[in-house]
């Protein structure tokens, strides 16, 4: 079992993902450069956070057209596991592998804090059996999830909404929806449920020393992938 951590120029959470996987989960991980053309030998893909291509034009726009993304697309379409956190989520949306888009936070500010998430889908590979409110860090300026009402209705009907921003008690309030996302959506799945994108950083919450181990609830999916190989 080996995870590909895709490296785009300007990524800055690639090492967080790499060390979380290797040290905290005990799973093999290797960096794959954005100009590479192969995912041969890999069983899962992690698209890390950061500011790929300086966030020029739109967040994730250029990264989503990088050479390795053709391979990530094929990998995803085969039903194999792909996760994108923060900029990785933006890349997946820009690539059309997930619906919607991410815009400048409604409150304009870059937000670097912990948030609480309600797990809305508990059957996908990434969210199976997670039955608690998760506390995970966010660090983004452009995390306001947008999709038109028809698209949101489809997400809802298909169980593609993975996470919503809530408060510590699990209630949805205007305040808990930190970036003003449509329907407080913090993470979405593709229709098959093998591709997950989310703004919070599960890879930054897999060690008690760093403040939270709630990220394991999501990252443990890599163990599931390993055991199903």
């Amino acid at each position, binding site marked *: 079992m080996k995870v590909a951590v895709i490296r785009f120029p300007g990524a800055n959470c690639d090492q967080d993902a790499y060390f979380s996987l290797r040290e905290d989960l005990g799973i093999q991980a290797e960096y794959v450069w954005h100009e590479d053309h192969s995912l041969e030998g890999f069983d899962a893909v992690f698209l890390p956070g950061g500011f790929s291509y300086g966030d020029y*034009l*739109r967040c994730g*726009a*250029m990264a989503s*057209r990088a050479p390795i993304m053709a391979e990530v697309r094929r990998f995803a379409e085969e039903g194999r596991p792909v996760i994108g956190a923060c900029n990785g989520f933006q890349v997946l*949306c*820009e690539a059309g592998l997930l*619906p*919607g*888009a991410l*815009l*400048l*936070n*409604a*409150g*304009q500010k870059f937000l670097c804090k912990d948030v609480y998430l309600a797990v809305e889908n508990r059957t996908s590979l990434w969210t199976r059996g997670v039955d608690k409110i998760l506390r995970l860090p966010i660090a983004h300026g452009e995390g*306001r999830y*947008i*999709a038109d009402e028809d698209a949101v209705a489809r997400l809802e009907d298909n169980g593609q909404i993975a996470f919503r921003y809530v408060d510590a008690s699990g209630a949805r309030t205007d305040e808990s929806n930190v970036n*003003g996302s449509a329907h407080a959506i913090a993470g979405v799945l593709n229709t098959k449920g093998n591709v997950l994108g989310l703004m919070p950083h599960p890879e930054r919450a897999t060690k008690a020393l760093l403040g939270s181990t709630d990220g394991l609830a999501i990252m443990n999916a890599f163990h599931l992938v390993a055991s199903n190989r």
Partner: protein
Amino acid sequence: MPKLSMTTVRVYVTLKPSLLDSAGRTVAGALQKLGYNELHQARIGKLIELQVEEYDEVRIKEMCDKLLANPVIEDYTIEVPR
């Protein structure tokens, strides 16, 4: 022989009117604080200047659809060079 004269094509990319432009809102707030009370809204878009050997509408549209604009959130208009 390289072509010496280039044509500049301007592409304007704007956020869909239904979406909140939080950067534009900040700018509008600043203008209102400067006393421009007649101002109700400011919206920020992008101007992209493309220098091409010759204007080919189909190719320019393709550039917009493939990369320059995201149809989920943005509209674009192409200014045909005179």
